[in-house]
């Protein structure tokens, strides 16, 4: 087998595993910022509900402007589903929007579970209850963010190295 082909093969393997490690590292680095963004959106949603009694579709649209990235997309999509005219409940609209946003976000399964739990209560009760549910959700997301910030950089670096080293190990085994 020509040496050039072998080198190309090694490069391909290392790039693939290195890229895999880099993707995971990027997710880990993004997660705290995205958790902060979704908290900002939920705080804006709480303000709209508590002080202005803004109906949920409008409140979600305004909350979307207070955040960026997947948090904004989540609010915007939920508002769109609510306004589709099918009489979807807020829980259904939030759940569908969460599924659609999942691919764009760096939230892990525990974050999605917290957000999903909020969806079941959204819009279905009085102002005081809504505020309580949102505050609870924000509190849990804040704890998750603090935890993620603590270990994010260390874990991201580990996954970067792991990706490259996994590629090297695979090359050695193959050769």
């Amino acid at each position: 087998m020509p040496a050039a082909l072998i080198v190309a093969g090694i490069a391909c393997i290392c790039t693939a595993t290195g890229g895999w490690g880099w993707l995971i590292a990027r997710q880990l680095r993004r997660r705290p910022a995205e958790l902060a963004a979704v908290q900002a959106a939920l705080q804006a949603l709480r303000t709209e509900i508590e002080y202005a009694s803004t109906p949920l579709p409008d409140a979600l649209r305004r909350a979307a402007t207070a955040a960026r990235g997947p948090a904004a997309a989540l609010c915007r999509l939920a508002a769109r589903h609510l306004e589709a005219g099918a009489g979807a409940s807020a829980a259904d609209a939030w759940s569908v929007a969460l599924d659609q946003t999942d691919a764009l976000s760096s939230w892990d399964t525990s974050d999605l579970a917290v957000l999903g739990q909020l969806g079941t209560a959204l819009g279905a009760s009085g102002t005081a209850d809504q505020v309580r549910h949102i505050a609870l959700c924000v509190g849990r997301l804040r704890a998750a963010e603090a935890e993620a910030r603590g270990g994010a950089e260390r874990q991201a670096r580990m996954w970067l190295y792991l990706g490259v080293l996994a590629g090297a190990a695979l090359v050695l085994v193959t050769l």
Partner: protein
Amino acid sequence: MSTSASHSADQGSAGFARSRPAFAGGVRAAEPEAQVLAYVGPRLRPLLQRLLLPGSGPRWLEIRLRLGRPLNVVTEDGDLWVGARGSGTPEEAVCCGSEDIERSVQLVTRASVYAWEDELAQGFCTLPGGHRAGLCGRVIRRGGRITGQKAFGSLNLRIARAVPGAADPLLPLLRRSGARPLPGIVLFGPPGCGKTTVLRDLCRQLSRGRPDWGIVPRRVAIVDERSEIAACVDGLPQFDLGARSDVIDGAPKAEGLPLLVRAFNPEVVACDEIGGPGDARALAEVARCGVAVLATAHARDAADLRARPTLRSALHTGAFDFAVPLRDDRTPGAVLPLTAHLPGSVPLRLAAHREGRACPLP
């Protein structure tokens, strides 16, 4: 229909045509029935849409959804029972399921129970276009009073229409008033006879003025406690009330009346369903300021009006010069026919004094 055509018809006393569109904030709106269909759940909506032939057939008054019972449309010609193949007998009609009601409630409340807490406690929500959704289910009571509802079993979508010219029979009372203060008028009658519709049209006509009757335009302030007169949505009146009207929405009359007199310097104030605690005091205060009062009251007849202590005290504040009964029955020799049939009454007649005056204050 052009705007100018609508305007001229509004100014005159022409009857209400089937195809005449309602006004929503001065913009021509779609057929009221079509507006209300948007609040019916997606399974039942196409069935109703099939029955709705634009510009023909009887006008729809209500769409009623009752859990486990047939889908019902109340028209001015009677009940329609809606089935998969059109209208028929109640046995042939489609039954409303819990999901139909639940989805309709979600559409009415925009999936936001918290935004309608007070309205749900009272059992109705005002919708864009001035329509109303009546809701009843299992009430939630706290501290001995109803604070909300859940598990809805019935939904009544009431279709609202402005009736331009409905107040025309009252214009003789206001004729050639010029710049002088207007008389105070209380309209009374049983529920559903069109008191609010007439009051709304009276506000519109006074706000615009009627030069043909020697009535100059007036500043009209409206206390819309139940959001029925103007049906404001986000501050925008859903009915045409003329250019010189101001509305305080959802305010109790006892608080809203003095507020409007202080802040808006009105020549006329209008409010619906007087007779609550504190109303008499507020009305007396308004009357002392030289502001004319237009109001409605629930009462079967003049004797009933007299018999209710809260109404009686409100009527003797000096705020009213005329009490005008609105009745479904015909009173021989003493009726002025309204120029339009109002929803919910077939036919409605405005009973008045033989000389064209309203009956004297009881």
